[in-house]
């Protein structure tokens, strides 16, 4: 049987289901997590412990009218939410969940992921600009400057990894870290002594890239109402939200693959997709945990952090890695 047709279709269905489920239920997880941190219960009414809440929310959003205010750019206004969702979904294709679960093995998958991530930023820009709302425009401008600032340290740390592995294929990077946790890039002190710092930088950058608190300058509900989402209602808003959660999933996957050994077991036993899932959900929980702990930063403080701390640190790490690889 020729698997070349079926394989993509099966994967497409599975990945779509995975992505959709995550997008819907991460909202529930976030609300539950926030509730626990704040010593509340979170959603409780719809279904057992509010498990059907995402369905109810989805139903509500879908049955609402998609309001397109007067004076907005008709086409761009409608495109933006879709554009926020699609790249995040597409990113799923190249992520290796396990040594044999991967939508499509792309040789330059790291580059592809970052290219797609930038489109997400453009969606925010378009959405904010097309809304013809001053808050939305400010938000769009903030999102762009923030994303530009954070892609640099992020890419610098990725270059470090690529130098260590010698490949831009996520599958290769993950394979390279098989075995116990001492093989993971985060603890590879033989390549560079600053790898944990590098991991931290990458994690901070992925929080910033996904516009999550404390870097949610673009959304900033106490300053900009809801930023680029101000004028969106119904599923337009829903797609933005889903896109945000998917971006978190992608960010967690990427962090796991680049630093935490992908699907490998910390003790070198039974590697498999479950380890991968455990790792990404721990990371996602950290995203939620961080969001509900800190106040929001401010645009200039954020850029200062990027340019004055993260970029120099990742530069140093890059040089140290290069030196280590050359020497040893």
């Amino acid at each position: 049987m020729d698997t070349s047709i079926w394989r993509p279709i099966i994967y497409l269905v599975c990945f779509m289901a995975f992505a959709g489920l995550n997008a819907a239920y991460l909202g529930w997880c976030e609300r539950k997590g926030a509730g626990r941190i704040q010593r509340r219960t979170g959603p409780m009414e719809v279904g057992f412990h509010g498990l059907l809440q995402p369905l109810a929310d989805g139903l509500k959003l879908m049955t609402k009218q998609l309001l397109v205010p007067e004076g907005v750019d008709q086409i761009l206004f409608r495109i933006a939410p879709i554009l926020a969702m699609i790249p995040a979904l597409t990113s799923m294709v190249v992520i290796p969940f396990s040594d044999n679960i991967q939508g499509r093995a792309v040789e330059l998958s790291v580059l592809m992921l970052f290219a797609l991530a930038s489109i997400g930023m453009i969606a925010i820009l378009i959405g904010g600009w097309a809304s013809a709302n001053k808050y939305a425009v400010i938000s769009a401008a903030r999102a762009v400057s923030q994303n530009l600032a954070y892609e640099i340290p992020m890419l610098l740390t990725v270059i470090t990894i690529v130098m260590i592995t010698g490949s831009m294929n996520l599958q290769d990077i993950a394979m390279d870290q098989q075995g116990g946790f001492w093989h993971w890039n985060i603890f590879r002190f033989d390549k560079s002594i600053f790898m944990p710092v590098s991991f931290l930088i990458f994690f901070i950058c992925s929080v910033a890239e996904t516009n999550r608190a404390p870097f949610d300058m673009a959304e900033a509900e106490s300053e900009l109402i809801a930023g680029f989402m101000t004028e969106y209602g119904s599923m337009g808003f829903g797609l933005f939200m889903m896109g945000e959660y998917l971006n978190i999933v992608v960010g967690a996957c990427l962090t796991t693959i680049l630093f935490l050994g992908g699907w490998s077991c910390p003790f070198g036993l039974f590697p498999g997709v479950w380890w991968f899932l455990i790792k990404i959900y721990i990371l996602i929980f950290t995203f939620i945990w961080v969001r509900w702990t800190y106040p929001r930063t401010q645009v200039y403080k954020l850029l200062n952090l990027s340019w004055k701390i993260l970029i120099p640190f990742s530069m140093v790490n890059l040089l140290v890695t290069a030196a280590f690889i050359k020497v040893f």
Partner: protein
Amino acid sequence: MTVPIQCRPDEVFVLNLGPQHPATHGVLRVKLTMDGEYIVKAEPVLGYIHRMHEKMAEAGSFAQFMPNTARMDYLHALAYNHGYVLAVERAAGIEVPERAEYIRVITVELNRLSSHLLWWAAFLLDLGGFTPLLYAFDDRERILDLLERITGSRLTYCYFRFGGVYNDIDDEFIAGTRDFIKRLRSRLPRMYHDLVTHNIILIKRLKDIGFITPEQCRKYGATGPVARGSGINYDVRKNEPYSVYPEFDFDVPVYTECDSMARYMVRMDEIEQSLRIIEQALDKLPDGPVKAKKVPKILKPAAGDYYAAVEAARGAFGCRLVCDGGKSAYRLKLRSPTFSNLSLFGEVAEGMLLADALAFMGSLDLVIPEIDR
């Protein structure tokens, strides 16, 4: 950090912050002329919740105005109760029994605590931190429960009466208050200071933001924590003592940094001072009646004008009562502290970033119904 503003007239735009905006805590509208994210000019527009309380005071008897006082500064309602009651008592020459004075001080300080806790929570919300809000509400809820037990209401208290208080406090209230003091003391360092005050993000957002010089404070008549954050040691409770405040040993926290962080710290320190006052008041609480005996049902103070000031959570609240010998106030002027505190917003916010201006606004601790009255 100072960033020069480059502004060509054709590049500015007007941003209406409010009247419905999450950061304005009610219905304040600020007309901002912006150059990008920098504010060129800020003009607060008031009056969205103006109810003309001062006219209402002229319409009814003195006692009938009592419930209105709680509806101005709904977060520190008892201070407004207190200010009004003091003014009328001064006009009618009513002596208040000592126990009633102590109960007044205890409840006012409890109310001040709840006001400061709510400010803290809402301020963190302005800065994007959600969780502290719930932690502060946990504590605040206990104050509300305590006050509800004795006053009967949770927010807009109408507890004070001319010559005393509505009814007496009981042992359960005293025990509950002592428990609460213990609880808040144990929670302050960790849940408030470690989680938030020492947080680098918060420090970076508040330090050196929103400078108010002492001279500006004076020129605009700013009082309360805003003035104390600018190094002005002024607290009506100390400088012009009323009620039984001279009996208590407490400090007035003053910070000279003049920035938002200083105002934040003043309020955080005031929480501790209020706890001290309540503790001492509970220790010294005398026995006796809680209401003066011969208070006529219909008050007819002698003609003339009378002034009474109290320290509300947001600054000096003044009550100017003009009487013409009738049974209602001829004119009642309510001097609300935030009205003056907000009036310097326009001058200070010039040249600020939008995000900083909102943090600065939060540090002023605005209660809009109090400004508009």
